[in-house]
């Protein structure tokens, strides 16, 4: 296997992913011709970003995050309030919503970083619940359980992105860019440092890894991307309410990450596709109330027979190293392998 071979394989895979996202899926959606399907596609992409951002902090860095919906919600409410109260353009609200979520994540992380395992998880759980209660009860700002309607539409350079097809492309571009950054962080020596602190943070510290700083960074970055996802949700749905960001949503995102494989980026995206897509498919087949039971059985079965997830971390990293040529070539005793990161 020579260098040009791996380069061409990398382009092949990148090409396949981009064609799928920007050509094949839109084509299928337009053939189906129902705007509802576009909404499902957007929801899948938004949750793929949520799962990917939780993958970074829970799967790679090993910090069990039970309040991810809080940062998703900060992004959602942040974007909605910036758009309705301050009449900011929709393009400005997306990064600002991400920054707001990142700032809150940072403030939450500073005192909680010293906590370990289950204590950290319970602290994040508390943050999630707190935010939910605030959005429900601070009626003057959040309109409480009634939620917020976004009238502005999505206008950028006088182009209206509110119609199904442009909205799809807009979400796809932003989600793809964010997932690319998460991919760069997880599949590099930075990712190795995070994995080390997941495996044994004291030991990683003795190796010269600044573990408190790394925890803080991964939690903040994860919060940023959850915030961006929230802003995309607010704009594409056109309406948000506290129920969109409650504890169940945190658990749903966690289920996606675990179903796909803790520590596996392709896995968390697959998890999002399955857990958002499957209920919709079952709805089409008129499965009625059996839907939730079927989803429960799928989750249960995967954890029972494939405890490391559908695409486990080891196979995911092997795949990225070999098919994307991101590992270093090594040879020993006639054995060829790819190790480390480019």
């Amino acid at each position, binding site marked *: 296997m020579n260098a040009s071979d791996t380069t061409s394989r990398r382009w092949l895979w990148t090409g396949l992913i981009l064609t799928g996202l920007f050509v094949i899926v839109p084509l299928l959606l337009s053939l189906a011709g129902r705007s509802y399907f576009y909404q499902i596609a957007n929801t899948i992409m938004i949750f793929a970003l949520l799962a990917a951002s939780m993958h970074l902090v829970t799967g790679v860095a090993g910090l069990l995050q039970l309040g991810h919906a809080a940062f998703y919600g900060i992004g959602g409410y942040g974007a909605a309030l910036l758009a309705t109260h301050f009449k900011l353009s929709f393009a400005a609200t997306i990064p600002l919503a991400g920054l707001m979520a990142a700032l809150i994540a940072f403030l939450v992380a500073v005192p909680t970083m010293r906590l370990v395992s289950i204590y950290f998880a319970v602290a994040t759980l508390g943050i999630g619940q707190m935010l939910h209660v605030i959005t429900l009860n601070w009626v003057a700002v959040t309109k409480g359980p009634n939620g917020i309607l976004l009238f502005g539409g999505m206008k950028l350079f006088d182009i209206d992105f509110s119609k199904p097809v442009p909205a799809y492309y807009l979400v796809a571009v932003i989600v793809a860019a964010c997932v690319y950054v998460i991919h760069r962080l997880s599949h590099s*020596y930075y990712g190795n440092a995070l994995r080390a602190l997941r495996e044994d943070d004291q030991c*990683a510290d003795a190796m010269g890894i600044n573990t408190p700083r790394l925890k803080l960074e991964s939690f903040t970055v994860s919060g940023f991307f959850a915030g961006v996802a929230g802003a995309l949700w607010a704009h594409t749905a056109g309406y948000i309410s506290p129920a969109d960001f409650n504890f169940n949503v945190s658990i749903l995102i966690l289920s996606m990450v675990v179903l796909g494989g803790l520590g596996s980026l392709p896995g968390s995206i697959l998890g999002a596709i399955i857990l958002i897509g499957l209920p919709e498919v079952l709805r089409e087949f008129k499965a009625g109330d059996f839907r939730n039971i079927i989803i429960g059985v799928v989750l249960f079965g995967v954890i029972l027979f494939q405890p490391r997830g559908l695409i486990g*971390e080891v196979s995911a990293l092997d795949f990225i190293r070999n098919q994307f040529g991101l590992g270093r070539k090594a040879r020993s005793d006639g054995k060829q392998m790819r190790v480390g990161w480019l």
Partner: protein
Amino acid sequence: MSAFLETRQLGRTFGGLKAVDDVSMAIEQGELVGLIGPNGAGKTTLFNLISGFTTPTSGEVLLKGERIDGLTPHDIARRGIGRTFQNLRIFPNISVFDNVTVGAIGHENIGLGSIFPWQKAKSDRITHKSFEALEAVGLLADADDLAANISYGKRKYLEIARALAMQPDLLILDEPAAGLNETETRHLADFIRRLHREGRTIILIEHDMRLVMSICQRVIVLASGRKICDGTPERVQQDAGVLEAYLGVDE
């Protein structure tokens, strides 16, 4: 000139227990020093005080003339102290190669910015150092295996490789021979000698008396938290206080 590593009246109490009591020692550059003592003598606590895992209740630790007591373990590690652990702490769910990279990553101090292309030189150095360290311990053929799946003996070397990837000025090995059989221990002795010949400063904590006496030029003996002897292996073996500490006192 001050010593390479120095402790001055170093002490640590846990409740009423003096785990390390008034220990002063000096290690010169290029030395291979053995640290021995009966169970509970405070060897590992002394190690933890030097590497920043435990903060001293009294005294000072100096590395190359600068005080390092009170610093975090990662700061001390970056100043050039690499260590292994008594009860083998590798990262089980990542590959052998990825384990070793962690030492090099700590040395390079990479951060969020590492995703930018202009940081590529850093990751090249990490790769290079990790290959070097794996080659030094002879584990290159196992590079892409999960660390959990290699044999116990290999894991011991993996831990040393990870410490070597930190490019340490001082290498502290905490009971590297524990759990190894006689042949493996001989191999390890050769390996430690080679590291020493290459110019590394090494402190070796060991229970295996034969290993320590055969490879170290100087041996420090701890008992009940105090330094009771410091000298050549021959001198230590004849010291009445050491014999007493190991064998007990006759009434």
